[in-house]
C-alpha cells in the first residue's frame, strides 16, 4: 500500500503552520493593546 513519507506530510502541513504563526503574532499584537502591528518595529 502506498503511503506518504514524513517529509511529504510535513510539506503538506507546512503552509498551515505558517497560518498558526500568523495567528500567534496577531494575538501578540492584540495583547499589546491597540491591535497595531508592532513586531519588527513597523507601525
Amino acid at each position, binding site marked *: 500500500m502506498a503511503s506518504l513519507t514524513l*517529509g511529504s506530510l510535513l*510539506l503538506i502541513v507546512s503552509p498551515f503552520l505558517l497560518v498558526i504563526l500568523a495567528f500567534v*503574532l496577531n494575538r501578540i499584537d492584540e495583547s499589546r493593546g491597540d491591535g497595531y502591528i508592532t513586531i519588527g518595529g513597523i507601525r
Partner: protein
Amino acid sequence: MAGVGMWASFGIYMVMLLAIGAYFWITDKREMKRLTDYLLASREGGTWTTAFSQVASVASGFTFFAWVGLGYLLGISALWYALFTVFFQLFTWRFVAPRFRNKSEEYDSLTMVDHLARHFGRRGEQRNADIIRVLGTIIVVAFLGVYLGAQMVAIGTTAEAGLGLNYMSVVIVGGLVVAIYTFMGGFNASLWTDYLQGWLMIIAAIAFPIAAVSYAGGWGPFLDQVSAAGGALNWNGGQSGVALFLFLAGWFTFGMGMMGQPHAMQRFQAIESERLLSRGAVIAAAVSAIRMTFPIFIGLSGYVVLDEVTNPEHIMVEGLPTLFPDVIAGLFMAGIVSAILSTTDSMLILSSSELTRNVYERFINDDASQQRLIWVGRSFVVLFMALAIVIAWAQPASIFGLIAFGWTGLGAGLGAALLFVLLWSRTTAWGVVAGMVVGLGATVWNQIYLPDHFPVVVYPVTFAVIIIVSYVEGSLSEQSPSGMDAGMGVESETD
C-alpha cells in the same frame, strides 16, 4: 456536455455578480465624488473583504488550471511553492503593507507606480518621477495585459472543456460580465465580488479532492491508485544536490512575485486602517494555504478520476461532472470562474488606475474634474477588457506560461522597487529606474535563455542593481536620501 442544472447554477452566479455591480452603481452614486472613491473604495476596505480580495486577486486561472496541472505533473513536491507563497504573503501583510498603507494615504497615491512616482516627486525630483511614471505604466500595461489575456483564455477553456460551449463566445460574455460590474461598482464591486468568489473558490478547492478520495474508496486506495499510475508522492521531486537546490530556488524566487503584484497591493492602499492588517494577515494566510494546498490534490485526482488526461490543466473542469451532481458541478464551475474573475476585475481596476493617474491626469489633462477622471477610469476598464479579449482570441497554449511571465515581470519590474522604497531609506530614484529596467530585462532574458530555471536569476539581479545604483548615486549626489520624510523637498505633485 453540461446539463440544465449545471447551466442554471452557473447562470445564477453570473447574475449575482452583475447585481453586486449594480448595487454599488446605485448606492455609491451620490458618494462617488473623487477618483479615490471609484478606484480605492474611499479607502474604507474592511478586514475580511480586503484579506479575501488580496488572495482572490492573485488566485486567477493559476489556481484551478496551472496549479492543478503542476500537481498532476510534479505531485507533492510542488507544495514547496505553497509554502513559499504563504511565507511571502505573510511577510507582505506584516512588513510591507503597514508602511505602504500609511504612506499611500499621505501621498494620496492610487497605485504602486503612482506611489513610486509621488515618493520622488514630493522630494522635488519631478523629472525622475515622470520617468518612473512612464516606465512603470509601460511595465503594467505590458505584463498585466499578458496576465489578463491568460485569465480570459482560462475562462474560455472552462466553458469549452467543462460546459461544452464555444470558446470565443464565452470569452466575450465572461469579459462583458466582469467589465460591466467593474465599470459600475469600481473598487467596491471588485472587493465584494472577490469576497464572494473567495468563499466559492475555497469550497470548490476542498470539495473536489474529498470527493476524489471518496470516489477512490478512501485515502489508502487513493494513494495506491495515484502511485500506481505514476503520480509523484515524494517531497523532493526525486531530485537531490544542485538539481534540488535549483528546484527549490525556482519556487522561492517565483514566490517573491507575491510582493509585487500591483492589483493585489492596491488592496492595501484601500484598507481602512493599518490596525486591520495584523488580523487580515491571519485570514489571508489561511485562505492562501487552502488555495495553494488543495489544488495539488485535485491534480493528483486526475490519475484516479479521469480515464485519460490529455491536458493536465483541464483536470478539474473535466473531472467535475464525474464527481458531482449537475447543480453542484455548475456551482463549482462557477468557483473556477470566480478565481479567474476576481483576478480580472482587480486587474481592470488597477490598469485603469495606472492609465488614469499616470497618463491622463499627469500628461493629458491635469485640470480634469474628479467626475471626469472617474469616467476616464471607467473608459479604461472597458478598453483593457477589449485588449484581454483580443489576447484570448489568439488562444496561447499554456496558461501557466503566460501567468508565470506576467507574474514575474510585475514582481521584479515593480515589486522590487516598491519594497526598497518602503523598507530601505537610501533607495534613490535612479536605483528604482535601474531596478525597473533590469527587472523587466532579466524577466525576458531568464524566460528565453534559462526557461528551466525561471525566475531564479531575476530577483537577485534586480535587487543587486537597485542597491548598487542607489549607493553610487547616493555617494555622488548631495541630495537627501529618499528615506527622509516626505515634505523635505518641493511638493510638486499635489492632489
